[in-house]
């Protein structure tokens, strides 16, 4: 059985977009990446470098044009509930209330009635949305919608968690709480996480490994081992080692951001 030995195996993935108007783009250029099972992997890179595209490919939403992506369940060919995703723009069902959104995936798993209700409530509580179960997404702030989307994905307890800037719309304080909550869940349930972020400190705080991506075409420029997430020191982000690491990763990112800016991003 290969089941336990691979998390996500990405081999030579190249992906381009050919829009009906405008020029074709190479979003990802020959990406190879080995993510261990239960690894917390952060993708860090300038805007437009293909982070979302890579998540879409792992999620099975877009056809792989070149290369191969495998998980413990075999080649990725279609979406499935083994790979939960939190989209950058949340993608809540606007005609469903918060709790109906969270229940949707649970009902697909066969959970019904009070069991689904209790589980949905648990995850809504986890993202601090208790009291808003019956609100429609349009009645929530961006940050609240984002947390509802996180609850909906966490509730189905996927083996692989794909998160596209999941805390982007949150204020600093809520963000810290959510980061700690996510780490706690990850430690408890042993998931493989791919986490996209722009925030260097967030990547260093959360990840085992950080992929620093280059500006278009998207490539993986550096892999950095962080592993502060294994620490049980609540003030780890104030330690000198942490600050050094953030500084070091910042330097790598800065070059790429400058390059991206010169390309007109």
């Amino acid at each position: 059985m290969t089941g336990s030995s691979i998390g996500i195996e990405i081999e030579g993935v190249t992906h381009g977009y050919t829009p009906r108007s405008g020029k074709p783009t190479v979003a990802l250029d020959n990406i190879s990446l080995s993510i261990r099972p239960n690894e917390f992997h952060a993708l860090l890179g300038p805007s437009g470098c293909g982070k979302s595209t890579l998540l879409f490919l792992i999620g099975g939403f877009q056809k792989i044009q070149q290369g191969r992506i495998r998980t413990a369940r075999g080649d990725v060919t279609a979406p499935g509930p083994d790979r939960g995703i939190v989209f950058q723009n949340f993608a809540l069902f606007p005609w469903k209330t918060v709790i109906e959104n969270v229940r949707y995936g649970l009902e697909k798993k066969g959970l019904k009635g009070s069991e689904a209700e209790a589980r949905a409530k648990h995850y809504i509580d986890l993202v601090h949305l208790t009291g808003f179960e019956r609100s429609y997404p349009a009645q929530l702030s961006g940050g609240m919608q984002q947390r509802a989307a996180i609850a909906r994905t966490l509730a189905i307890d996927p083996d692989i968690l794909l998160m596209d800037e999941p805390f982007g719309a949150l204020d600093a304080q809520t963000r810290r709480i959510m980061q700690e909550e996510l780490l706690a869940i990850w430690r408890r349930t042993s998931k493989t996480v791919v986490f996209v972020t722009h925030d260097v400190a967030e990547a260093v705080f959360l990840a085992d490994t950080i992929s620093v991506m280059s500006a278009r075409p998207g490539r993986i420029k550096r892999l950095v081992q962080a592993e502060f997430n294994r620490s049980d020191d609540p003030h780890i982000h104030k330690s000198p080692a942490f600050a050094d690491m953030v500084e070091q990763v910042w330097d790598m990112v800065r070059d790429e951001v400058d390059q991206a800016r010169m390309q007109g991003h």
Partner: protein
Amino acid sequence: MATLLRYTPLLIVALLWELISRSGLVSQQMLPAFSDVLRTLVELAQSGDLLSNAVASLGRALLGFGLAVVLGGALGAAMALIPFVYRGIDPIVQIFYPLPKSALIPLVLVWFGLGDKSKMFLVFLGCLQPMILATFNGLRGVDTILGWSARSLGASRLEVVREVLFPAALPQLMTGLRTALAFMFLLMVSSELVIATNGLGYLIGSFGDQGSYREMFATILVVTGLGFAADRAFLAWSGHLLRWRP
């Protein structure tokens, strides 16, 4: 109170109507006084003529409307979801788009004669287009990511169509239904003006021919009232269905 305030302009129009007619500025024939029209309306209603003709009109119209909703919805959905259906049907829909359906009244008379079928068919034709377009555009406009979301939560492709695409397209579908409802009234009356032996449109036409202008105005008021009530009721229903919208 707020509703009363909202419809004050209507009261003013009725008042002006009454004044202009009473002042003798225009002949009573061209514009019978509003109060006289109302009195005639009550008489007509009591005689039972209005009801029987309204039932005849609405019966036919609703059948044509219902048929258009079912078939138009199915065609629009097929066009949105199956590429070759789109390629096959879209040119036909496009060609007929600018054609006013009332232009077909004489032709339909030849095809179906004076009976119920001709009016049903015209209403059906008029309502078909808005239903096809609303369903097609509604389904096409749904954010792809919503479908992806459902798939990654465990939905099958078919479930995505039923549980995501249709609910997400509902605002557009409701707009299409409302347009179709307006077309239904339009074609119901205009077809009966030309080809009918009963119905509200027929009443308007024959009162006009006989020179019974009060009765004609009274029937026009009835048609307007029916159309307005139907639209209001529809909006209330639609507002309830779409209560999730901001």
